[in-house]
């Protein structure tokens, strides 16, 4: 496949209000930022001003939650229209969403649900991605999600499913290494086997963070420091995938910015060691 024309972005952070003040004082900790698109759709003037400040200082990647790219009944059209406006406002090199569905029959789940890894789902995704790309002009990048159950009807494994999707649509992949690690623990598979069929040049960006245990299940709560196995997986991915950027995606129990910056520094060093970006902040 042809690699998407996306510049090297380096090491970034998922921007959150919880550390907004600290971040304004120390923007140098990140090379680029990701924003949750939904926070800036129908938002207050203050939120919009915040977005404008971010866009004046950084490359801003909008990360959507509600497009429902895997819905058989089609994507969430009102959401898409607003997302198009946001993408136009920040002019990112790409925007991202989740490889899942979150609505059906006019009802929203409020969370992601997995797709069955089969031909029918691939056809739906191909159609929906085509419709989205027809109105956005900016490349769409899709993220692997965690799941607490696997949808019946699979005809292939998830890695093969993603590879087939890339082959059919040319869509870029946001590989969430925490999600991959979480699923590999909960469903007992080898994350490297998952990665094997995926074309390396399709993986544009990584997400990383830490989760929590609930009984014997690992939850992707985005509420803990990135654990050692996730950094190890990141290292293996960055060794062989020409990733453009990584984003620390902390959503809950957010610590002082200095602690997040330490995680960013570690990711920066890993990527620099594999020649993905410079050691120093750009």
């Amino acid at each position, binding site marked *: 496949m042809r690699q998407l024309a996306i510049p090297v972005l380096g090491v970034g952070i998922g921007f959150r209000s919880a550390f907004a003040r600290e971040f304004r004082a120390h923007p140098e900790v990140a090379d680029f930022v990701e924003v949750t698109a939904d926070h800036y759709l129908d938002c207050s003037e203050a939120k919009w001003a915040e977005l404008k400040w971010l866009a004046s200082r950084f490359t801003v990647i909008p990360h959507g939650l509600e497009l429902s790219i895997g819905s058989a009944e089609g994507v969430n059209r009102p959401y898409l229209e607003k997302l198009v406006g946001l993408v136009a406002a920040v002019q990112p090199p790409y925007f991202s969403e989740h490889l899942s569905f979150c609505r059906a029959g006019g009802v*929203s789940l409020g969370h992601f649900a997995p797709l069955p890894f089969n031909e029918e789902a691939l056809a739906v995704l191909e159609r929906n991605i085509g419709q989205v790309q027809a109105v956005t002009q900016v490349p769409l990048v899709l993220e692997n999600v965690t799941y607490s159950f696997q949808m*019946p009807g699979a005809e292939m494994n998830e890695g093969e499913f993603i590879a087939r999707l890339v082959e059919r649509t040319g869509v870029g992949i946001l590989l969430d290494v925490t999600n991959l690690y979480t699923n590999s623990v909960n469903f007992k598979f080898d994350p490297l086997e998952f990665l094997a069929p995926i074309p390396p040049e399709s993986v544009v960006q990584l997400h990383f963070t830490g989760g929590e245990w609930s009984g014997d299940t690992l939850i992707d709560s985005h509420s803990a420091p990135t654990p050692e196995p996730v950094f190890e997986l990141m290292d293996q991915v960055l060794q062989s995938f020409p990733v453009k950027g990584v984003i620390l995606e902390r959503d809950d129990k957010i610590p002082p910015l200095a602690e997040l910056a330490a995680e960013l520094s570690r990711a920066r060093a890993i990527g620099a060691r594999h020649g993905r970006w410079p050691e120093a902040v750009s």
Partner: protein
Amino acid sequence: MDSGTLAAQQKLLVHLATQPSALAEFCQDPVSFGAEFGLEPAQSLAIAQIAPALASYSHSLVNKRLRVAKKILPQSSRFLGAEFDSKFREFAPGVHLEGTNRHRDDAWLFTEFLLDHLPKGTARQLVRSERFGLEPYYSRRSFGVAILGASHTVGFWWRGRSVKFRFFRLPF
């Protein structure tokens, strides 16, 4: 625009995950229940096999809403403690919201529910105070005033042509 089996599968899954009573009903007779959504018997039986995980998923959807409601209504949540959680679990199943601001809509409707179900006192005052903070999003008026007993302040909000809205509070 439907895509056959996947559309039916997704509609059934969303129904089971968002209607607490539906999952128990489905488990009693998955084939008949699934047929109403257009699924073949084998497809319904395959979904029945993941019913325990769906129950857990359904529970996690409510928990996610609860976590956001706590962030939007922090004072009420802290004061009510476990009662906030139990009241939310009572309120949540009948409410299915849409749109990018549905978490705020959820919190707004939950304050209404709390005001209907809490006795007079500090908890009600806190809920009323936090509800006032959400009022500009839902009121058609161009300003609002309220005595916020919990914080011993008088709260004001207003909006103009070029301003979405502004808040301020004065102590008394």
